[in-house]
């Protein structure tokens, strides 16, 4: 597949992004609830960035499919 020269990386727009994610999850909040979640999300995003590190394909998650053992 060739790269599209006119492709634009989406710019993060905090509130719009959060609204989209909540809508996708089927969660409807009041304006006040949304504002509180948005504030909480500010700190939480840092945690998500930290876990999305450089991994190799050999780095397996700490989940074992053990139901057949």
């Amino acid at each position, binding site marked *: 597949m060739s790269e599209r020269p006119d492709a634009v990386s989406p710019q993060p727009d905090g509130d719009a992004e959060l609204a989209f994610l909540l809508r996708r*999850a089927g969660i409807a909040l009041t304006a006040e609830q949304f504002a509180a*979640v948005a504030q909480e999300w500010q700190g939480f995003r840092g945690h*998500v960035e930290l*876990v999305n590190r450089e991994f190799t394909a050999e*780095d397996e998650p*700490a989940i074992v499919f053990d139901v057949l053992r």
Partner: protein
Amino acid sequence: MSEALSIAEAGKALRTGATRSLALVEAALAQIEARDPDLCAFVGLHADAGRAAARVADREIAAGRDRGPLHGIPYAIKDIYDVAGEATTCHSRLRLDHRAERDSAVVERLREGGAILLGKLATHEFAFGGPSHDLPFPPARNPWNSAHIPGGSSSGSAAAVAAGYVRFAPGSCTGGSIRGPAAWCGVVGLKPTYGRVSRRGVFPLAWSLDHCGPLAASVEDAALALEVMAGHDPLDPASADQPVPRFSATLDDGVAGMAVGVPRAFFAEHPSLSGEAAAAIELALEVLRGAGATVRDIELPDLKLFGACGRVLMTAELFAIHQKDLRERPGTYGALTLNRFALGATLSAADYLNAQRLRRKLKAAVDEAFAAVEIMVTAISLDTAPAFDPPPNPAAWALQANAFNVTGHPAISVPVGLAANGLPLAVQLVAPAFAEATLLRAARALEARVGIGDGQRPLRAAAFSGAQ
């Protein structure tokens, strides 16, 4: 019963006839009646059922039937554990109509062991959202100063033990919810190895992080409680099939020659570390050296990685559990709970899996550190418990605990003394997986020399004069 009687001492008194289980229960109920209107540790008191169980215990003990170290001993339990026929409210409006069909595994074991259940204890909503005043029950308060929070989410468990109602109270720990409140309430809080105690019948917060364990008035009390609570449960998919030693049997073996590691980077430069909390850690290390241990600094990965890993794992797992209710009735949750639970919608599958990949690396790093040391000593409370007013922000709590929920290693909070404001301080000890016997032995060596006093508060307090 004097609140100074340990479980072992009460057990002896029961077997010689010096006291009766019913007397222990009535003494506990009197304490609860006197203090709990202020402390709010209980959300459901089962006084009549407790008395009935105590009468049975007294008959059994008199007839020579001995169910073990907890026979006839009163306890209370965090209201996320099922008790047959009772509501497991999880301190939430969503669960007020719930009724448990059967006992949780821990309650089954404690019932079989003859322990006497007095009732259900306060928690944060679903073991996460709190302390909060918009829930069906008020938050528990710190018995050392009821204007201060006890910590959580095993808030009622810590308060009930610290107030002297009971000698032990099972709690749960997903990111520090046993050790945190134990530290702030001046009691012992033991998070065993992941899988050591069955989670069956405990409402989950995050399956891969949830640990069940006791809060207790002393290390010995915690050891005896764990002996009964622990054990393989084939109905809990995470239950470890490991033998359960008599943890109390080796408590006084001492720490001579024990290698102790200190991951100093976890806490030494932390901006929230108070002078008194720092002095408490150094005192604990000095005590262990004096008892014959060798102490050295060790390196572990950045604590922020453990914190981030734990938060992402927890948020993804709790979101899966609560997704339906978050869609259908978000406003029924407390505001603090909703703020934190809704964040699960922002996570992708790759976020969760990458957190699990990081988790494997972090666990390996801690295991590697344990190749050179037998115990780690680190911070748990960077400062004393905050006040209810202004409302404390859980994200900013001065506690360090979730690293060992991420890795699953056993960890214990041991009181070390009181700060100048009269509130407890503690340290955290950590051991290799399934080495609770070593962990408890080291904790006992520490407790024997410093602390707040076995069942007697605030005697034998070591007040710190470190500058803030």
